[in-house]
């Protein structure tokens, strides 16, 4: 009953060899990023950050603090760029929008029954519309992994199409929750499906399931994006999220992007990193690069 059955053609999805993709990702992890490349990479990563708080104990105060951090990650140093977006629950979209007004930092909201996605479609759509009308620039939706793993690809496709429609002008990031998909074949399949259904970004994880944005998973998705671009001319963005805590990880992700998708994707428009604690490690590494001293976290504000 798919609206556009030709959108996702399972037979055209290439298989992924686990050992091969893991070796490639490990090979790229051995790139040596030093000096200027490291500094530039850290600043680039900062500008790509979706600074995230997605907890049950989130409050207005917490979100406002985070917004200040988003606008000016390192107080007193304007060379450190603001992050790309704040990522919050729908309840906090309006607050974030207000706190970020005029800053250039976007507001992203998770929606569609995040993180499990186990709510009826009308609820998902309502969730989405409310977030958008509250001012969300971006919607991070979750796919129905249960449906996907049962082979109900049409259902998953249709849901994405419907959410996309509900998004209106807001950008849609489709979260695959790769930790639950388990195999790289599934990750590739879900990536192709989401892109065919109109995703503006594909995103690895909710952050609530491990493993999350492992380098090989990210690489599989980047390769899917590249193939989609080569076939259709449409550039889909990528957002790894979950478990990305260190500058080293972030730089490794940039290496994957640089050597898979090239220059065009090395921008916040097409690459984001979803993380809650990465920002401070980026700052500490930046300070280490400029001072030559290893840093202590108490010298950097948590929020």
């Amino acid at each position, binding site marked *: 009953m798919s609206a556009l059955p030709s959108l996702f053609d399972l037979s055209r999805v290439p*298989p992924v060899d686990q050992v*091969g993709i893991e070796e490639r990702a490990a090979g790229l992890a051995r790139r040596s*990023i030093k000096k200027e490349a490291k500094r530039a990479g850290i600043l*680039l990563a900062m500008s790509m950050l979706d600074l995230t708080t997605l907890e049950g104990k989130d409050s207005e105060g917490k979100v406002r603090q985070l917004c200040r951090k988003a606008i000016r990650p390192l107080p007193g140093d304007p060379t450190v760029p603001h992050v790309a977006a704040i990522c919050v629950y729908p309840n906090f979209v309006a607050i974030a929008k207000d706190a970020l007004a005029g800053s250039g930092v976007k507001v992203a909201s998770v929606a569609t029954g995040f993180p499990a996605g186990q709510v009826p479609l009308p609820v998902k759509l309502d969730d989405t519309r409310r977030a958008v009308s509250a001012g969300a620039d971006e919607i991070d939706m979750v796919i129905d992994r249960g449906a996907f793993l049962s082979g109900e690809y049409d259902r998953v496709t249709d849901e994405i199409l419907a959410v996309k429609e509900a998004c209106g002008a807001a950008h849609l990031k489709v979260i695959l929750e790769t930790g639950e998909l388990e195999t790289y074949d599934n990750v590739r399949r879900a990536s192709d499906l989401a892109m065919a259904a109109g995703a503006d970004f594909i995103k690895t994880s909710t952050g609530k399931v491990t493993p999350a944005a492992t380098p090989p998973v990210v690489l599989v998705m980047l390769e899917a994006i590249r193939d989609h671009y080569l076939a259709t001319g449409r550039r889909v963005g990528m957002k790894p999220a979950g478990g990305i805590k260190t500058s080293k990880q972030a730089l490794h992700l940039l290496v994957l992007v640089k050597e898979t998708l090239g220059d065009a994707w090395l921008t916040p428009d097409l690459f984001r990193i979803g993380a809650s604690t990465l920002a401070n490690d980026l700052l500490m590494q930046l300070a280490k690069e400029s001072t030559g001293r290893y840093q202590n976290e108490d010298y950097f504000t948590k929020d």
Partner: protein
Amino acid sequence: MATEIDERAERKTATSRSEAERPRIEFGTAWEYSPAPEAADIVSIEKRETLFINGRFVPARSGRVFETINPATEEVLSEVAEGGAADIDAAVRAAEEAHRKRWSKLKPAERGKYLYRIARLMQEKSRELAVLETINGGKPIKESRDVDVPLAIAHFFYHAGWADKLEYAFPRHRVSSIGVCGQIIPWNFPLLMAAWKIAPALAAGNTVVLKPAETTPLTSLALARICQEADLPPGVVNIVPGAGETGAQLVNHPRVRKVAFTGSTEVGKLIQRAIAGTGKRLSLELGGKAANIVFEDAAIDQAVEGIVNGIYFNQGHVCCAGSRLLVQESVAERVIQKLKLRIETLRVGDPMDKNTDVGAINSRMQLDKIRELVACGVEEGALLHQSSCALPAKGFFFPPTFFSEVAQSHRIAREEIFGPVLAVMTFRTPDEAVEKANNIPYGLSAGVWTDKGSKIFQITSKMRAGVVWANTFNKFDPASPFGGYKESGFGREGGMHGLRAYVELS
């Protein structure tokens, strides 16, 4: 007539327009890696390197020396003593005496302990060995560091354990050593090949005289120092650098009981002929022109990685390199497109930079040979694709290259180029792939890429090659036997089968 020209011009514009509109991926400088050179000062190279005979470093009796250079800079690294007939004789006699008096009499477990000791010392000096290998041979430091040196060490560890277990490998036999082994190794994996040769020979109770390649003697001599440091009895390992003539003297020395050669098929045949009727044992690991077969159902991106690893690893200076790509017609365009993209991301240049993927060609002679064959490929009408990378002004470099529209009869599809040059051909059916893959006098290795399990077993079993990589390429392990069919030589190195080349059974 004017109209015709206009039309043609029109068509040309149309083509270039659609070319411009076609999605393109640019690997540019949006975020560039900074130079990341490995520190070279960890090694100190003697201005004069000598022969290692009977546990001592000695000059050549003739006093002759040859220069060894860094192929990435063309700088002279050292003057190395060139072994002559008298040196070979001294080395072989030392080895014979060491075999008779000490090494073959030693308890096997004790032999094993020496090998373990060598392995440990190599581990301790692994960074130094990697740097030396890269400086002398031109291979990227990341390969010396992550492949050559760890594998060389692993070979010593692996064979150390065999020393007192040979009877288990050859049940119902009394196992004894052969005697003096004359071993000749190439320049593409200098230390690793030395390990492949020396470790099993010593484990089985033999002694060796090893001649490293003329262009890459330094890590073999470093290994000699390690043997010295490990208190290996004098004469058990002798290293005599030199060129082909030195090798011939070694092969023809009457007291050499076994010859092991890795190198070109041409020289291998000369050796086989030379020792005919002498009763000397022989193992040969010779040239190759491996086919990498990519079926339409393969994991294409991993296949492309395998293709790249197969031909650009170590600048393509690999006897088992996947230098022929056979790709099923239905996916040929996609594979070629991906390959073109992929070679743009290969970083060519300073081998000492930790981010270099493709280093220096080993010698000017080899570079000339590669250039000649590539020119020949162009002349024969194949379509040339080359990375747009900039090459260093000094040193011997060649960009990652592949040819599409190659015919089976082209020289680039038949001759071993031993450089970063791939010949791409297509096939339609599995039978055609097998036939084309086997239609070559070599038989060292092959690659098969398909997601279908039953097809893997069918195709791999039909490959006339000693090592078949299915859904991978260029993998090595001391526990895994390596060696060729047909004109790629005989005998195996590594694994239980590799021991066979170094034991006498009765």
